[in-house]
């Protein structure tokens, strides 16, 4: 082990390009670097996916709201949407309508119980949708906070190794020390490269998800009030009849 370190340290006098720095690094440092690169790849995959998904979601919400407030009958809208396995607002609408239909097809029951069931169904759907919307954002948060530490760990290990090499080669010229420290610092650099976009994206995506969630919730509340008015109307009609 010691000899290996010594020869490694001596070989450091070679190139100083990025590839050389990576290739000359010790095993642990190499693993750390590779892990951080993989984390960065996954982070960016999540970011790209989420950005695309949120954009699609926003488009979908706009479309649905346009259709909903276009004056079409809710029954018709329900028929068009139920086959498409909608997401977002559509899913909430479909869940509510399904509960509504089930209740009225099987005869009138207590209107207060119906109202509660519809709201419950919408809440559950909303929660499921939000959960789906915010999935994997936690990974971004983790990378954003942990990647610098992981990189620092690689740096510390690398500097430790290079100091051991210096101790072995018994010369302290800067040319001997420099490559080891540079390669060790590369680990921290990669960690920061992974962490910075993760933190920024996490903040941005969380805010976006919050906005979408708010929009869906407000729709759910509006739809719930519409349905409750419908229930009251039907109740009064039935009472009158």
């Amino acid at each position, binding site marked *: 082990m010691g000899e290996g370190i010594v020869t490694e340290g001596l070989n450091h006098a070679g190139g*100083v390009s*990025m590839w*050389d720095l990576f290739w000359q690094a010790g095993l642990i440092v190499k693993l750390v670097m590779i892990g951080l690169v993989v984390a960065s*790849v*996954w*982070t960016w995959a999540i970011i*790209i996916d989420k950005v*695309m998904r949120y954009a699609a979601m926003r488009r979908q919400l706009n479309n649905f709201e346009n259709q909903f407030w276009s004056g079409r009958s809710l029954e018709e809208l329900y028929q068009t949407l139920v086959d498409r396995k909608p997401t977002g607002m559509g899913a909430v609408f479909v869940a509510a309508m399904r509960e509504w239909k089930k209740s009225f097809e099987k005869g009138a029951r207590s209107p207060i119980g119906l109202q509660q069931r519809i709201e419950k169904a919408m809440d559950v759907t909303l929660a499921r949708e939000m959960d789906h919307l915010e999935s994997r954002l936690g990974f971004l948060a983790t990378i954003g906070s942990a990647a610098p530490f992981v990189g620092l760990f690689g740096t510390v290990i690398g500097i430790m190794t290079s100091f051991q090499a210096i101790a072995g080669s018994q010369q302290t010229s800067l040319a001997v020390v420099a490559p080891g420290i540079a390669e060790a610092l590369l680990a921290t650099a990669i960690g920061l490269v992974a962490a910075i976009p993760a933190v920024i994206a996490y903040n941005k995506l969380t805010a976006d998800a919050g906005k979408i969630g708010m929009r869906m919730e407000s729709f759910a509340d509006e739809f719930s009030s519409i349905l409750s008015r419908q229930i009251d109307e039907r109740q009064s009609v039935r009472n009158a009849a």
Partner: protein
Amino acid sequence: MKTGLTASALVHGVVLTWGLWALSAPEPMSIADDSLPVDIVSVEEFSQMVQGAEDAPMAEESAPEPTEDVSQPVPEAENIGENTVDLDSAPAPRAAPRETIQTAAAEAQPEPALPDPVPEPEAVPEPAPMPEPEPEPEPQEAESEPEAPAPDPVSEAIEQAAEEPDPTPAPPQNVPVPQNKPERPKPVEVAEAKPEPPKRPEPKETPEPEKPAETKSEENAFDADQIAALLNKEKSAGGGAKRQQQTAALGGRETTGATLSTSEIDALRRATKDCWYEPSGSFGSEGIVIEVSFELERDGTLQTLPRASASGGDPATRRAYEDSAVRAVRICAQTGRYQLSADSYDAWSELTFNFRPGDSY
């Protein structure tokens, strides 16, 4: 999710490959250390600095900047580079050879007279030796009669000889020897300075007649010294100055002087010793150390009175030794024995010698 992952992987692959190979090694730092050339000049070297150009590159020998302006020749220039044109070297009086002959004669005389300085304090018995030499000139009367009147006519005769090279000046050199003997004591009584004046004018005026005298005596008799003089035809004549033609080389603003070699200082010390007449027979001279210090002009004369201080021994004897040491320095200076090359003047401008009783023997 798949699209995101593939897109991310693709972008990472592209960025990493670009980063790893395109962002290769940074330019190695060029550490250019502009070093200032520093020459360390020791105090000794500085004091021995030779005239040259201060901003010229260093060369084997220092040389001032070459002179090219021929319009203003300096008539009394002495050193190379002082003048702008080559001047004929003016004939300079050559004093040295005659002087040494004279001093040799003078040295021979004082030996019998050595006891004289001893009775100095007594002063009265000194006239007594006067009658003694008198009988000596008597047998020589035939020869000495013409020169008998005074030493002055002798110098006059030499001056005449300067104008008309005659064989006559040769004999007078030998003749004054007995004459000087009786005269010596007199100046000692009156003043020490007197015996020297006759010598001084002589060397300055005589060099010119000297040459003919040598050539003539050459015919008369075989003399090794004269042959040596013949061989040494190169006469050192000062004066004049050459134009500086060398390329300028690093050096000081002026020549500050060379150091005296030990042998030169020894020579000065020896000369002082030779001029020193110890107060002999004095009591309590053991352990006396006399320190004489004096300053010299460039021409070898005294700048100030020499100062002597003795330590140890009997106070009266000490004073006698101090006086004798001061006298020795003055005699040496007046006889021109302190003349050294002006180049090293700084080295011999101030001298201090230590003597012990018995050094002069």
